[in-house]
């Protein structure tokens, strides 16, 4: 069959006997079955008349301009993979662009937005972007965990050890840290934050100097934050004396939770027994 087809021409128009498949070459086993079916069912004899009718129809269609008809969806048999690959590439690039833009927006927005959100201890700010604060003084990392514990303690006991510097200073600090972060990556802060920072610094060229001064004052100002846990610890050590007297009220339970979260292992042993003791002691 192959030679005839590649040879083309009239050599193809011979008539086959119907049982021509016997003796057809086939390979072993499975391939043999498919080859057998193919050889038996394929009609390798070309009817010259039928071919001429088809060619005549082709000629007519060509000469009447039918071949300029538009391609419908069902006429498009171009390989699917190419189109799929294209659309996949487009999807991926859109996704990558979205992630990049989202990352920029998030990096610029995250630290700047946090002071508005919480009570001003700054505990949540390092939490959102702590891994990126390479240039921050190393004390900020411990102060972050401590101050978050402190905020829990202070919210429980309503102790006012929290914000020591005003809101605007915090804002500037946040913007500065965001600015440094973004600057290190060669990008620009998002516009409102940047303009506020420029306004606060008093000019675009002053930003770095301004930020240097802000962060310099900010590091000592974190001091109260670090002092809080020590106060909490003092309270915690003092508490065993106090809790029985408090008759294990609501505040006692709150303190216990705050301490357990804030002060770790050291106090874990003592509050638990006192709590049970206080409970039994207060009941009768």
């Amino acid at each position, binding site marked *: 069959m*192959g*030679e005839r087809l590649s040879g083309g021409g009239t050599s193809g128009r011979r008539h086959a006997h119907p049982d021509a498949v016997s003796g057809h070459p086939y390979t072993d086993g499975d391939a043999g079955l*498919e080859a057998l079916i193919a*050889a038996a069912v394929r*009609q390798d004899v070309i009817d010259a008349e039928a071919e001429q009718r088809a060619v005549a129809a082709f000629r007519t269609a060509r000469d009447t301009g039918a071949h300029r008809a538009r391609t419908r969806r069902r006429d498009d048999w171009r390989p699917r993979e190419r189109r799929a690959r294209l659309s996949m590439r487009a999807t991926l690039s859109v996704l990558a662009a979205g992630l990049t833009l989202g990352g920029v927006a998030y990096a610029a927005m995250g630290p700047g937005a946090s002071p508005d959100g919480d009570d001003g201890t700054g505990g949540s700010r390092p939490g959102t972007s702590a891994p990126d604060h390479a240039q921050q003084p190393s004390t900020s990392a411990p102060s972050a965990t401590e101050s978050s514990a402190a905020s829990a303690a202070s919210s429980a006991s309503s102790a006012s050890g929290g914000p020591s510097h005003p809101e605007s200073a915090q804002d500037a600090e946040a913007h500065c840290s965001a600015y440094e972060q973004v600057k290190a990556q060669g990008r620009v802060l998002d516009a409102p934050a940047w303009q506020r920072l420029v306004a606060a610094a008093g000019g675009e060229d002053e930003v770095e100097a301004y930020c240097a001064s802000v962060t310099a004052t900010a590091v000592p100002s974190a001091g109260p934050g670090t002092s809080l846990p020590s106060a909490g610890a003092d309270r915690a050590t003092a508490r065993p004396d106090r809790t029985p007297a408090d008759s294990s009220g609501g505040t006692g339970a709150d303190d216990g939770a705050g301490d357990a979260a804030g002060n770790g292992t050291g106090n874990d042993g003592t509050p638990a027994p006192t709590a049970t003791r206080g409970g039994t002691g207060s009941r009768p």
Partner: protein
Amino acid sequence: MGQGGKPRRAQAYDGELGAAVERAQEGDEAAFAAAYRIVQPGLLGYLRGLVGEDAEDVASDAWLEIARDLGRFKGDGAGFRGWTATIARHRALDHLRRQRVRPRPAVLEADVLELPGTHSTHEQALESISTERALDMVRGLPRDQAEAVLLRVVVGLDGPASARVLGKRPGAVRTAAYRGLKRLARELGVAGAAGEGVTDDGSRTLGESK
């Protein structure tokens, strides 16, 4: 008929076919004839499986439509096989619908399945098969299996193209072809060896088909 023997031999001419179609779309009459000679054997075999002895008439109808709409087609040689098979199938289904309105005596049935079960070897069983018997066997399959086997083995389409011709999911067509081939092997009386062979072959070649 000498060299082939491979079930995929229809695809061996896809490059040639694609070039011929391209030239035919530019108006080359001889190229259209060449494309006809490459496609027609498989197409006619497929139609024989669908409509039996009326295959030649249905094929003529299909080719009139192919010749008319050639300018619309976009794709390569393999795509042209799929496109023409789709047109031929629509013509065949039209034909069957007309037949159902005016029924005619059934073409086959009966003695078709008295198959050689006594052959000692695979080779003998396969060698003895005739065109009629092979067609009858294929037509004895459930419709979806028969069409899947014909498109794959006789027309030479890959899985996705067969699925598009049939308007089904590729997985369903793959399963149908596999079951059909397995059943054909069993009916050939070589269930042991060939059945396993077809099982292996089915998973391999169907898997490799794009």
